[in-house]
């Protein structure tokens, strides 16, 4: 079904004449967007407004599995999109399993066929839950694993499937924790928490906890868990020693803007090298897994933020740079040559079955990036009041500077 989609037609160029000047969008053949959200959808299955920011995203066979973040007072969803049918097939309101939750913004950790995630509860002081979810192609089964840290939500989560461990960052205090799936044993590490002094420091920059906590965690090939901690530091948890280590080198910094530093995204290369995106000024960086040397790889565009990274089947690193008050650029980084190619603001046809021709769709704010297991597609989850899922084939990405 993927290839039934066409490149945007000449008709779009006519449309361009109305409002646009000369520029080109990167719209490879086979790219598409799935209408996940639509307020008042009638008979169609869609997520309602203000409950659909796609803040957790995983690919599982033909399925894109999402977890959303809702506005205060509203509850989030788990959802499943069939990539071959290009359609939202299942929407699961988390209220049915765990009432009082606002967000599944942790990202998913996969262990076997199960996906694990963490929630953030409504209001202050209520604890977020760890959840285990499985999807059988028709429905979600959700298991509530409880509140790992009393009074704390779960801001970021990852899993080590070999050790059958989950690792997370709590919210709002930013504590690192581990969760042993077999025993449900939780261990909390206070070292990553924001101190009172750091709060004062961030206060001067009008930065909140949400602005500075490690937005993502990643497990490397040695089982170490990587994240960032205040202020601008990189840490790893070593399962061999059961200890946290803050490495000597910091996140790459633009002078004077150190308080902005935090891990926005991570990806581990096939060779074990760790890549990260720094939210502060949108720099890509690399950590050598042996020497622990941190290299600043620069930034693909002029904006802060790098909310997502994923490796494609071609061995290149795909990502999103930029966010509000700007908007997203899709880029590809060649880890061998060090070249960036800015593919611009992603625009693809939105699937609207009732309309014969394509709806051009642009992804402005992107919360999540992941790749299908075969690396052939990069999936982008929007971060909007009405968010959609964007699918881009790796095959279509140019080998050199574009356009």
């Amino acid at each position, binding site marked *: 079904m993927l290839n039934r989609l066409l490149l945007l037609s000449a008709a779009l160029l006519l449309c361009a004449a109305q409002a646009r000047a000369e520029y080109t969008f990167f719209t490879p053949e086979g790219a598409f967007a799935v209408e996940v959200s639509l307020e008042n959808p009638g008979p169609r299955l869609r997520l309602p407004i203000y409950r659909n920011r796609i803040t957790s995203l995983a690919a599982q066979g033909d399925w894109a599995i999402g977890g959303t973040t809702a506005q205060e007072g509203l509850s989030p969803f788990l959802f499943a999109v069939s990539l071959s049918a290009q359609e939202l097939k299942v929407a699961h309101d988390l209220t049915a399993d765990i009432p009082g939750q606002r967000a599944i913004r942790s990202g998913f950790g996969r262990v076997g066929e199960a996906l694990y995630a963490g929630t953030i509860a409504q209001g202050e002081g209520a604890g977020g839950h760890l959840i285990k979810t499985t999807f059988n192609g028709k429905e979600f089964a959700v298991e509530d694993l409880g509140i790992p840290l009393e009074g704390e939500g779960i801001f970021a989560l990852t899993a080590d499937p070999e050790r059958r461990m989950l690792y997370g960052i709590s919210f709002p205090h930013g504590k690192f924790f581990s969760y042993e799936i077999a025993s449900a044993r939780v261990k909390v590490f206070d070292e990553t928490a924001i101190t009172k002094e750091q709060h*004062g420091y961030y*206060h*001067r*920059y*009008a*930065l909140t906890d949400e*602005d500075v906590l490690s937005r993502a965690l990643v497990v490397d090939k040695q089982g170490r868990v990587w994240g960032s901690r205040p202020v601008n530091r990189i840490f790893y948890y070593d399962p061999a020693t059961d200890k946290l280590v803050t490495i000597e080198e910091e996140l790459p910094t633009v*002078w*004077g*803007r150190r308080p*902005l530093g935090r891990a926005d995204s991570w990806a581990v290369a096939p060779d074990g090298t760790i890549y990260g995106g720094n939210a*502060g*000024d949108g720099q890509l960086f690399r950590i050598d897994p042996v020497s622990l040397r941190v290299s600043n790889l620069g930034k693909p565009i002029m904006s*802060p933020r790098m909310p997502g990274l994923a490796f494609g089947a071609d061995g290149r690193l795909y990502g999103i740079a930029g966010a*509000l*008050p700007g908007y997203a650029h899709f880029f590809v980084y060649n880890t061998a040559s060090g070249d960036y190619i800015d593919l611009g603001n992603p625009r693809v046809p939105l699937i609207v079955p009732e309309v014969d021709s394509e709806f051009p769709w642009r992804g402005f704010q992107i919360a999540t990036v992941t790749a299908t297991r075969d690396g052939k597609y990069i999936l982008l989850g929007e971060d909007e009041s009405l968010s959609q899922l964007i699918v881009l084939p790796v095959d279509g990405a140019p080998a050199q500077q574009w356009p």
Partner: protein
Amino acid sequence: MKLLLTLMALAALVPPPAVTAAPITMNNVRFVEYPDFPDAHSTWRSIGYSTRQNKVYIGVTNHRDKVGLFEYDVPTRAIRLLGFLPELAHLRPWQWQGKVHSQILEGADGKMYFATDGGESREEYLMNHPQGYYSGLLLRWDPRAEILEQLGTGLPNESIKDIALDNVGGLVYGVSYPSVHLLLFDPGSNYLRDLGRVGSDHVPRCIFSDRWGNAYYVDWRQRLIKYERDTGRLLFSEQSIQWFPGTTGEQIITGIPTYATDTELGIIYLITYSNMLVAFRPQRRGIGEIEILGPTVDSDKTPPPGYSPNSAFADNGKLYYFVGGHNRYVVKDTTLLMEFDPVTGKRRVALKFPLDVVSEVTGCDVKDAQGNLYICGRRRAADAQDMGESGASRPFLLIFNPDKDIRE
């Protein structure tokens, strides 16, 4: 709402060791609190007097993102909040302003002019980042219509630390922070001219003007810079304003923090950051004469200690200034009110204040028709510790009249 604070406890303060002093006591001082702004933190030379309205205007900040504009009505002694700048100027959260750091000056049109500043580190370093600083604004309060007019920004991502007015031709002079660009605004034509960078590591906080509409600033060598209105040229004095032996470069580049004018004799009194009193006699063309009057306080230290970001010239022909602030005090944990007599060249301590009464004072030459001097006061306040970067304090309006009992 009118809130006047009588500080009975201050009566117990020890009078200063006498010179041949006029009897200045706490009866000559009044403190006025700012109503309806519980998280008020500080004031920063952000005070001015309207001769037409007989009112004093003050910008008060929480040193974060909220600046209240207050009006003190001299005849009724009533103080009221006119509004907060974000609402008055239609600013968005990403256009936050940390404070009014400039003077509030009466223009030839009877309107009150001032400018805004960031004041926090995020101004200087975050710039175009979402949490960064948009720009300082030139603003004008129309006391008759009670409307705040936005006269536009200065340079992008730069604040405006101070302004001076050309009350002959309607120009407004400003200095930007942190890049120290002298700015020339013409609100009538909406023209903004960047006269260029004239400082570096520290931005001297004070610009002033003379009766011909010329404006003055200092460069990094503490030399006077003059924008000469008649010629439209920028002049640089050949000589630096003298400093004491041992004065550090850091102090020199900070220049002049305050001025006060003897309008009868045409003298502008200046105080440098390194505590030198100066009499400056401006002239229409060229840079005028500079006379060194010695240290702000009698001290056996060189350079003399202290810090005076304020001064006012009283009807009795004497110059008054407070010494202390930003942890630079002559007497430990004490702010001094000094009197300087230009005729005799003598100076004396007129009053002393503990820091929880007066910890720092700002304001340049704000005086009403009855000879009351108005100054922005701050007092040390532990409960304001988590606010802003610049000390834990609470602000108040300080009224001082060296010749009259002005108690409530």
